[in-house]
């Protein structure tokens, strides 16, 4: 089992959800976060004073999946989340050692 996390633009969330649903991925958890990276954010003004926003609101999507699904999902996520402009975000993959469905106590792959 692997955990895929994608840090993406918040306005892409709806589309990503739809795309994942279509692929039959139902289990997912979403976090709000703030990111900085190559993207420099936008400037807001407060009473004439520029305020540089170097932390930009992002969304992290977390999917725990079977090893076989990883590559397909990375491609899907990249495709949907990409705008081509700086700030599109990153995908990270981590190992998962165990998975338990609380309701049933099931463990491992069938609990994903």
């Amino acid at each position, binding site marked *: 089992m692997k955990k895929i996390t994608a840090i993406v633009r918040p306005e892409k969330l709806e589309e990503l959800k739809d795309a994942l649903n279509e692929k039959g991925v139902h289990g997912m958890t979403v976090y*709000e976060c703030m990111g900085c990276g190559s993207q420099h954010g936008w400037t*807001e003004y407060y009473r004439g004073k520029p305020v540089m926003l170097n932390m930009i609101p992002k*969304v992290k999507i977390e999917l725990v999946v079977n090893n076989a699904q990883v590559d397909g999902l990375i491609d899907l996520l990249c495709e949907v989340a990409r705008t081509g402009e700086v700030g599109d975000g990153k995908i990270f993959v981590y190992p998962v050692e165990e998975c338990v469905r609380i309701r049933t106590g099931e463990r491992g792959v069938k609990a994903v």
Partner: protein
Amino acid sequence: MYDSGSTAFMLVCTMLVLFMTPGLAFFYGGLARRKNVVNTMLMCFAVIGIVGLTWVVAGWSFAYGGDGSLSWFGGFDQLGLVGLVSGMLSEAASVPADAVYPSLVDVCFQMAFAMITAAIVTGSVAGRMRFGAVLAFVGAWSLVVYAPLAHMVWGGEGSLIGDVIGALDFAGGDVVHISSGVTGLILCVALGGRKGFGLKSYRPHNVPFVALGAGLLWLGWFGFNGGSEFAADEVAALAVLNTVVSSAAGLASWLVVERVASGTPSLVGACTGLVAGLVVVTPAAGFVEPWAAVLMGLLVSPVCYLAISRLKARFGYDDALDAFGCHGVGGLLGGVLTGLFCVPELSWTGVGGLLYTGSPDLLVSQVLGILVTLAIVVVLDLLLVAAVRAAFGGLRVSERDEALGLDVSAHGESAYPAFTGLDS
């Protein structure tokens, strides 16, 4: 000398009606999505700035200037409010015996009406219209549509709707609610729906703000309907009482409708019902008995509920915050019901409602008045929309800006930068 009691009353009512526009900013702002809060509220606030200026420059003159010879327009003689203060100074010497309060009060009271009416319109366009185009539209609209319409309904002797047709409109069913609601409808059709409209559903981002807005509107509306008697007397008291009981009835019946339709009475529902009850009683406030006001409030909520939940889905226009579903529909219903329930002795024209007189005269006038209002508003609106569209090269923001939200894209300002969250 003026009657200082009525002067005091009219000044305070003016203040309360002015306060409705910030109130509406919260009603609408709470209903908006989180990414469009600043834009939604700023449209209302900007109306204060714009109509405040257009009214001084020409609106007052177009609506209430002139010598009363035109049935559809005031005049050009009071542009820029010239002569207002010198008139007041010379008038002070010889106040007519029957003058209730200084005419200066009216300039401000009627300005407050122009502001709130223009602000109502902005509810339909939330989340997708260019800010500059909104400002240009409401500024022009206040001069070209609102001011003449106010003259036609409230211009006294010879005015088209109020006198020739003989339609009654106590505090602004035609002038305020039908005109703004229908304009909202036209604008939202011209704009097209928000991205995902019909597929995704939107929720209000801040329900307590909706309640705050409703509460502030409620307060302001007491001045709106009470002040439309233009004196501190028993009819003003009746208008206030009717306003309260109709809004209470609208609130209650909306909760009942929700209980039946979805099982869960909601706070946004209660606030919507309250406002619908206020709208419906507006043309009738000083004309009907309290039991009739209660009935009007009980009726308006199911009607608006159907309009909002069924009509909109059926015809697919994206009236984002329901300016039409609430104000347009409620105003229409109120105008018609006034033709039924108007107490003859209270009627400005002496003509009473069907229920008292058995004659459909008033009802016919009311319907005619509404039809004329609709015709005028629709035609002028279409011209204005075309003009603004041409001037700005389109009414809508880009798809990307819409997705990002207008707050950041058009105003460089997040409503709640220190709070985490997402529009859902």
